Every structure is written in C-alpha cells, then in structure tokens.
C-alpha cells in the first residue's frame, strides 16, 4: 500500500530521513515512535505528499502510495486516497459546522450528493458524532474536535489514514475512544492506518507493527513486542515486563495481568508502602471557589489546600475546569464566588511584580512565555522585569534546562527545551508556588524524564507544585496528592496513590496490572524487589 | 414652527464687535430663461464670520428666508429659490447655486465652501443660480462687477464712514435689470431705520424669478403626526427588542 524506497529527505543541511526502506501492507495499523525531532511528522506528511509539495526541501528516492509516486502527485490528487489529520485538528477546520466539515472533502472530490449523504452518516456513526452533527466546530471539546477531524477525512473514503499524535490533547477516556474507533476502522473497513505518537502506553495495544526512529536517521520496524524488547523508549508496561523478565513482552494490560501472578504474590508479602509525607505549611488554598466564563460555570465550589514541598496533580476530562483552577491560583482569573489565596492574600490582588515572586505559572503552551530573539536576551529581560540580580535567571535556566546555546532562537528549541527554559524563567524569582498546565504535552520520554527530575528537585526545596495533566504516568511518578475534577467540582481528593488506584480511568499501567495492590510505578516495584530478601 | 422650538432664528444676532467689516454679497438668479434678476447686499460682520454667515445675515436682514442646505452641507436655496431640488440633474447639467469669490477684476469659481471661507471685505461673495451648470469653473460667473468698490461703494472710501446710507448705483452692465440697493453700513439686524426702508419688493418682481415665500420650502405646519407616529413605532420596536434580548439571555 505504501512503500518508502530508499527515501532521503532534508529541509536544510541535515537529513531528517536517511535511506528509509519501509513497506506498509494493506489493512495494517502502524505506529511510528521516536524522540522529538526524529522525523515522525515528516515521514507522515510524505505519505500524503504534503512533504515535499507544501514544505519544500529536498527529496531523494521515492515514496509510492497506492501506486502513485509522491514526486509527481500533489496532495490534492491524493485526497481520495490518503486522509491526513494533523497535530492540531482545530487548525485544519475549513467550515463551521460538524456536518459541513465532514462533507468538505467529498464536495471537492465531486462525489454524488446521494453517496455523499450516505457517507456522512457513516462517518458520523463510526466516530459517534451523531449528537454533534449540527454543532459549531468552535463549541466542541478537544476530543470531539479530534473525532470530527478524523470523520472529515474518513468520509472521503480514503484507503489510508494518517494521524499525527491523535491523542496528544486528549484525556485518557477520550484517547481510548479515538483509538478504539481507529481499530474498528482497521478491522471493519480494512483501512491502512499510520499514526505517530509519543504516549506509547496509549497506542501500543492497538498497533500491528511499530516503527521506531532513533533520531539519527536509523529505524527499526517490527512487531510491537519485538521492537520494544530493546527500545530506549518504552511505556511502563514494557519496563515492568523487562523487570519481571517476561518474554515475549506483554503489549496489553490484559496479557500482563495473566502473567503477573508470581510477581503480585511476591509484592503482596512486601510491607505496604509508607503513606506520603504531609508536607509543610499550607501555601495556597481555595474555599468554595467558583469561576465562570459568561454563562458557563467552569468551577463550582472547589476546596483545595496545597502544602509546601508537595506535588498536587489535578486531573479530569477535557473541559472539567483544570486550567481555570490554575488560572485562579495564578491570579489571572477572578473568582466569581468563594476565594483563592496564596499565603494570606488572594493572588488577584497582588501587583504584577509581587505575583511573579509568589506564584510561577507555566501555561499549556510554554512557548507563549518566550518572545525574545535569543536565549540570553530572554534571560536578561527576565532579570530586568523581575528585578533580579543580572544572571539569576540564566543560572536558574541552566539548573533546569542544562546548557542552552545562548544565541539560539527560543522558538527553534524543542518542546522539552522550551518548557525547561520557560520553567527556568518562571522559577528565577523563587516563587513558593509553581503551577504547570499540561507540561508533558508534546514531550518525548527523555524530556519527560528530565521534567520528573526537575519536579522532584523543586519538591525537595520545599516548593509547592500543582500540575494539571492528562498524563497518568506522570502523576504516578511524582504526585503526592491528586484531585479529580468533573464539571468544575472536586470528585476525588486525597493521596495520589489512593485516588488514582481507585479511579480506573486515571490508573497508570502498573497499577492496572498489579491491582488490587497499590503500586504505581516500575521504579517503586524495582526498589521494593531489590530491598526484599527474596 | 418647528424651528422656533429651538430658539431664535439662525443668524439673527451675530455678536457686534469692534472688528466689524462690511462684506459684499451678490446673488444672481441667472439669465437662463432670459429673465435676469439679481441683488447685491452689503452686510456688517465680525472678523471671524464666514461667507455662509454673511449670506444668512444679509438675507435675514432683508426679511428673506435664510438659505437652506442639504444634509451634506450643499447650499440648496437662496431666498427660497429654487422651490424644489437641490443640485438636481437638469438637461445639460445640474441646476445649482454656484459660488464665486470676487476681486478687483473678475469673479473666480470657488473651490471651497461658504462655511469654510472667512468673509473678507476685499473678496465679495457671489452666488449665481446655474439652471444647467457643470459644477466646474466653466459655469457662468455673475454679471455684476466683482469689486467691493462697485458693490458697496461707501465702504471703499478710506474714511469708512459708518453712517452714510448711500444707494448703490445700478451698474451699466446689468442691462434692464431691477436691482436692490442697500444701505451699506447698517444692513445688520440691529435694524437701523434705513434698512427698514429697503424692502423685499426691491428685488425683481418678474414672476418666474421671484423668490418663493418662506412657507413653500419648509414642511407645512401641523404635519407633526407623521413624526409622532414614527416616534411611537420606534419606541415599540425598541421595547420588543429589549424584551426579546432579555428572554434570550434568561
């Protein structure tokens, strides 16, 4: 169906794709994984001809898609064959209603109105969008948008579906929904699906084959189990399998549970884990906090206390009020009732300068905090604005991000580096409270590991940290407390271990495997096994 | 009528200051149909006044209706003439009032409007009705001489004696035309006796060119019903709008 034949590609001087040979069979679900910058997106876009026709750059060799060479077939001509869904589905919307968006590609292809009508209904059914057919695209949640974007390319009945990080912005439930819809397509319609994803734990169970890019132009392809056996990137499930010495490695939680009897018994005899430390003083708290956007109540009576030296995770579906809660704590959103306070004062009452010294907030798009042309300039202006001694910010950035070339443009850095730089700037005035909104979005495993290290270091220093996230594995690794929000209300609040083990939707893989034991991470298990006499 | 609700009639009382100058105004109803008629007026204006003010004052002091303007500021009627249309299309061009600046030798077609032009004793303002003009300098200029000295001779005298009610001579060029004469120095509405002796009837009485009576250009009195009904309807629509908006919000 798709054949990369000795394909090389580069935008500038260095090759992003080197001598790639790969064949994707009809009806296969292929997952492309690899660190940031390893060329996943480029590879995906080649299948649709967007690279090189839209991007420019130099292509050697060829890619044959359903018998067409992408060299002489522009994306427009491939529209009936390949459906491409980019990283940000909202950026691809052309019309303004769900139904029209789904019909758009078919209209361009000149499909008979009667056929078009039938296919729109099919696409609505496949993606469970029936209820939403008359809705405006701007009123949809992230998961719904992703499903509409997929339905919009599906309706044109392509033989190949290409998706770039389809679950990056989704909560675990919505991600599950999208991925199972995709599996249904592969099974029922025989569609060929190629998708790129950072969150392996989500997609691995659905993959027929995995392509692992190493970032140096190298590539491994094969069955998920085989590829994962010696991959540096691995979800917790695989790591647990390696630890327990299972072979072949389990790909799904179900497989692992069937095999983990002995492990579970061994762990059950070990002493129960010590409860989390209570932490220090209360740094921030909310009392019956509400916040609204027009008629929409985003937060409805939230009570919360954040203590020094702890990490609190805030979880919940898309649109459950996580970001709004952080905005209230950061003082950039006025509560409509109740109050939020940091120390003794509501953060909204603080002056800008005081607020920066008290609360550090890294928004979902960390890059928004960066606007200088060079890294060193960024640090220097931050010193000036925050009234710090020259060099303070630079030191803080180095402590967190490592050495960054001072003359790099901040927007050219990778997502992980941008986050670290933004975090370094925010932390320079030494705030007592740090808020992070969805920090692992777009981060690969390596970057995520260093984020965990940073968070642990901050906790040790006695900083209170609040993280709003969909990433259950991150929560499992670092959080002391967890709060689950639904429709702006707190539905669970307590120790992270207790909360996430008892909320199936938010349980990490290790907890699912070892349930009913309350183990959260492979690290914990490994440490416990080492310490035990057996 | 309606205007009286707003107070005094426009142009009734320009402030009399020390810096009053005499402004010459020439109005010609044109010679389109072989019925030439014109009059010249001299009016005292304070130094900041505009040509538009001078024209109004001159007409009002004669008991003639003040000029009317369109909503865009185009001059429509002088002394109630013409009774319909404002810069309306006519065979071969437009029928409109052309505006000229005078000078010692000739009239020049004005490129500005009377409201932007500061009245100047040395530059008489000339108005000529063009029954089929083109709206550009090719349109015919007033027949009367263009120099202040010929229009308001007394002011041209070096002494500038204020109290000499002198009649202007009929210029030889305006053949067969009955013209008004003005009392040069006391033409303002302070109503010195000589002004009262210069009645409207001095304006040519040829029927076709006779300025219409004031009542003809104003909407007739007693038709406020239309206004009232419209205001009531407006109120009703606004109420409906507010009620609907409330209901949507709730």
């Amino acid at each position: 169906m798709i054949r990369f034949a000795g394909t090389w590609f580069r935008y500038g001087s260095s090759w992003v794709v080197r001598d790639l040979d790969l064949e994707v069979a009809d009806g296969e679900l292929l997952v492309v994984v690899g660190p940031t910058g390893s060329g996943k997106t480029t590879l995906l876009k080649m299948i649709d001809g967007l690279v090189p026709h839209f991007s420019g750059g130099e292509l050697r060799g060829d890619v044959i898609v359903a018998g067409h060479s992408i060299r002489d077939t522009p994306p427009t001509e491939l529209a009936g064959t390949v459906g491409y869904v980019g990283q940000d589905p909202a950026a691809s919307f052309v019309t303004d209603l769900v139904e029209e968006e789904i019909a758009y590609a078919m209209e361009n292809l000149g499909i008979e109105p009667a056929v078009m009508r039938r296919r729109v209904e099919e696409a609505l059914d496949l993606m469970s969008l029936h209820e939403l057919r008359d809705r405006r695209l701007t009123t949809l949640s992230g998961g719904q948008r992703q499903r509409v974007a997929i339905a919009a390319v599906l309706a044109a009945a392509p033989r190949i579906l290409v998706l770039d990080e389809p679950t990056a912005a989704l909560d675990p439930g919505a991600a599950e929904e999208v991925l199972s819809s995709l599996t249904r397509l592969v099974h029922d319609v025989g569609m060929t699906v190629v998708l790129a994803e950072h969150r392996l734990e989500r997609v691995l169970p659905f993959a027929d084959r995995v392509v692992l890019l190493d970032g140096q132009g190298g590539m491994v392809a094969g069955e998920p189990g085989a590829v994962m056996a010696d991959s540096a990137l691995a979800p917790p499930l695989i790591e647990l399998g390696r630890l327990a010495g299972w072979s072949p490695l389990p790909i799904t939680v179900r497989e692992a549970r069937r095999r983990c009897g002995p492990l579970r018994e061994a762990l059950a005899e070990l002493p129960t884990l010590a409860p989390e430390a209570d932490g220090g003083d209360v740094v921030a708290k909310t009392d019956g906090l509400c916040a609204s956007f027009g008629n929409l109540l985003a937060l409805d009576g939230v009570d919360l206390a954040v203590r020094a030296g702890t990490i609190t995770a805030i979880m919940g579906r898309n649109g459950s009020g996580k970001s709004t809660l952080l905005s209230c704590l950061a003082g950039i959103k006025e509560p409509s009732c109740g109050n939020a306070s940091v120390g003794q004062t509501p953060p909204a009452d603080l002056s800008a300068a005081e607020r920066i010294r008290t609360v550090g907030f890294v928004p979902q798009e960390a890059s928004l905090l960066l606007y200088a042309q060079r890294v060193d300039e960024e640090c220097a202006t931050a010193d000036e604005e925050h009234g710090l001694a020259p060099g303070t910010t630079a030191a803080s950035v180095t402590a967190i991000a490592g050495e960054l070339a001072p003359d790099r443009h901040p927007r050219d850095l990778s997502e992980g580096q941008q986050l670290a730089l933004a975090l370094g700037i925010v932390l320079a005035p030494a705030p007592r409270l740090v808020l992070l909104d969805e920090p692992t979005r777009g981060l690969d495993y390596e970057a995520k590991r260093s984020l965990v290290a940073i968070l642990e270091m901050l906790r040790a220093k006695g900083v209170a940290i609040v993280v709003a996230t969909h990433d259950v594995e991150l929560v499992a690794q670092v959080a002391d407390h967890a709060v689950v929000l639904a429709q702006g209300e707190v539905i669970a609040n307590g120790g992270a271990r207790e909360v996430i083990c008892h909320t199936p939707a938010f349980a990490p893989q290790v907890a699912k495997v070892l349930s009913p034991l309350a183990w959260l991470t492979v690290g914990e298990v490994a440490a416990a096994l080492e310490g035990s006499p057996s | 009528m309606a205007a009286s609700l707003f107070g005094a009639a426009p142009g009734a009382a320009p402030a009399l200051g020390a810096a009053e100058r005499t402004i010459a105004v020439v109005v010609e109803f044109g010679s389109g149909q072989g019925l030439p008629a014109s009059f010249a007026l001299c009016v005292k204006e304070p130094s900041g006044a505009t040509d538009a003010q001078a024209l109004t004052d001159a007409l009002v002091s004669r008991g003639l209706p003040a000029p009317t303007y369109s909503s865009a500021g185009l001059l429509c009627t002088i002394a109630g003439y013409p009774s319909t249309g404002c810069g309306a299309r006519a065979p071969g061009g437009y029928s409109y009032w052309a505006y000229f600046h005078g000078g010692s030798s000739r009239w020049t077609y004005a490129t500005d409007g009377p409201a932007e032009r500061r009245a100047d004793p040395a530059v008489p303002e000339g108005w000529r009705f063009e029954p089929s003009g083109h709206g550009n300098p090719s349109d015919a200029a007033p027949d009367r001489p263009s120099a202040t000295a010929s229009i308001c001779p007394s002011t041209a005298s070096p002494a500038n004696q204020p109290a000499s009610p002198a009649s202007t001579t009929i210029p030889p060029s305006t053949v067969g035309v009955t013209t008004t004469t003005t009392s040069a120095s006391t033409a303002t509405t302070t109503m010195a006796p000589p002004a009262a002796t210069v009645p409207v009837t001095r304006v040519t009485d040829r029927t076709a060119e006779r300025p219409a009576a004031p009542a003809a250009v104003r909407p007739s009195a007693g038709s406020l019903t239309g206004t009232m009904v419209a205001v009531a309807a407006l109120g009703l629509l606004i109420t409906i709008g507010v009620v609907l908006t409330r209901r949507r919000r709730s």
Partner: protein
Amino acid sequence: MRRERTPHAVAWWIWAAGLALAALRTSNPLLLALLAAAIVVVCVARTPRDLQQSPLATFARVALIIILVRVVLQIVFGQRLPGHVLFTLPSVPMPSWAEGVSIGGPVSIEGLLSAITGGLRLAVVLLAFGAANALASPRAVLRSLPGLLHEVAVAITVALCFAPEVLASVRRIQQARLLRGRPTTGIAGMRGIAVPVLEDALDRSIQLAASMGARGFGRRPVSVSLARERTALATLILGSMILLVGGYGVLAGSSVVPGAAWLAGLGLAAVCLGVGLSGRRAARTRYRPAPVGLRSVACGASGWLSALLVVIAGVADASSITWSPWPLSWPQVTPLAFAAVVIALVPLLVAPGEARVAAARGTKIAVS
C-alpha cells in the same frame, strides 16, 4: 428534496443588503432609526441560539463608535454653516494655504444633528450586515456561490476564520505576558505581542492551506475545457465590474454615473451569463444544499421591497426621505416610508423561531 424550514442563508443576506440600500437612500434620521430598530428586532428574534456571541453586538459597537467619531469630527473640524450655536470652541487660525480647514469655532445644533444623521446612516448599513452575519453564517453564503467562484469563496472563508483566530491568539499572548509581568498595552506591549501573533497567524495559515490541499481543494476538473472556463471567468469579472460601477451610480443618486441603471442591468446580465457558462463545471458537488422556497423568496424580497418603497416615497415627496438640519425642522415619516419599515419586518413572519426549527428537526435545544 428537503422541505424548506428556514430561509436560505443567501436570502438573509439579500434582505440585509436591501435594507442597507434603503438606508443609503435616505437622510431622514427618524426613518433611519426605525430601520435600525427593525433590523435589530428581526436579528434578535431569529438568531440561532447556539451562536455564542452575536456578531450584531460587535457591529453595533462599531456603529456607535462611527457616530461618535462623526460628532467629534464635526465639533473639531466640522462645517461652520450658520445655525443655533450651542457653544464656541476657541478657533485656531490657519495659514493661508490651509484656508479650507477650520479648527474650532462655533458648534451649532444643526452641525451636530447633521453629523449624527450621517453617522446613523452608516450605522444602519453596519447593523444590516451585523444582522446578516448573525442570522446566517457568511460561510454558508459562500458555499452557495457558483462553482466558478469556489476558489474565491474559500479564500474569503479562510480570511473570515482568520480574524477571530488572530484575536484569540492576541488574548492568549496577552495573558501569557501578564504572567511574566510584562506590559500588555502601549507601544512596547504591542511590539512584544505583534511578533508572536504574526508568527502564530502564519503558522495557522500554512496548516490550513495544507489541510485544504490534502482534502482536495482546487482540483481541476478534467472534463471542462480550459477555454470555456476562462471565457466564463472573464465574463463574470467584467460583469461584476460593470455591476459595481452601475450599482454605485444607482446608490449615489443618478447624477454621478450617466445611465447607471442600464449599466447595473448590463452588469447583472453579464454576471448571469458568466455563471451560466460555467454552470456545467461539475467537478464539485454540494452536500445537502439548503432548499430555496417561499420563505427564502419572501425574506429576500422584503428587504428590497423596503428599499423600493423608500425610493418611491422619495419620488412622491422628496422631503420624506431627505432631511436636512438647515433649516431645523422635525423629520417626517410619510405612510409610504413607514410601510418600508413594516415590510422590513416580514422575516419575523416567514422565518420560524428557534423553538419551531428545533421541533422540526426533532432535536432538543438545551435551555440553560
């Protein structure tokens, strides 16, 4: 064919255009205010409920600003026609080369009324288009354009999406700057915001272009001859230009462009010919085209009938649609002009309210 439930999107825009035309033909403030009120009432009563923020509010705000600006300009630079002086601003003597410009001086009731009326006229035009935007998405209108204009329509659609997105990105960036305690206003603030906003905007445009390309936008039909398509396009463009000139002539009151009505008719004919020539281009199809029926016709026609009535009212009695504050008088609304306003309200009858639309569709409307 589906049954027609609501007027077609295009019908709403035609209605609004008719009313805008009516407004442009009159300088009677009372009639203008009535037209504005009629537009607002129809819009408020028939705007779909799921529209989060009605564009009408935005347009109304702009309209108000226009009136204010006109009044301020009138006070500062306005025409100094004689009238009832309210107050006198100190006037600035201008050098001889700027004789025509006057600053300050006496401010009269007449001048202010003239400024308000002039502003009101533009305001009604804006309100008409705000209402059209609220009642029917401009994208729905563009979808109904003939296939020949499809590329143009999509370009406009994208531009229409673009403005709100830029606003959204300005808001996000301002908020992020607030987090770093940076100024968000003033020149320094603007500079810092402009660069990321432009970068963002450019990124989005490229992504959208790629998405459109990947979904088959701009595919050339094989069956239609290039020559025919070009002829059709040329006819269409030429026709639109003639229509534009003619239309301007009609609006400006006949004296500017000779034979304006003829030109407009010729232009319209050429446009129709162009569309007809291109009509066989079947490369694109349309998904569930909205049916056009009596409701749409009544809705569109009411706007133009209203404009026609205003014109007739003017012919019958010029003073009913033209009004000038020199000399001051109460604006009159004659029965004919009044009928124009009543006709403008016809869509209230032919377009069903939200509840009935929902019932017809068989879906429930959430009422919060």
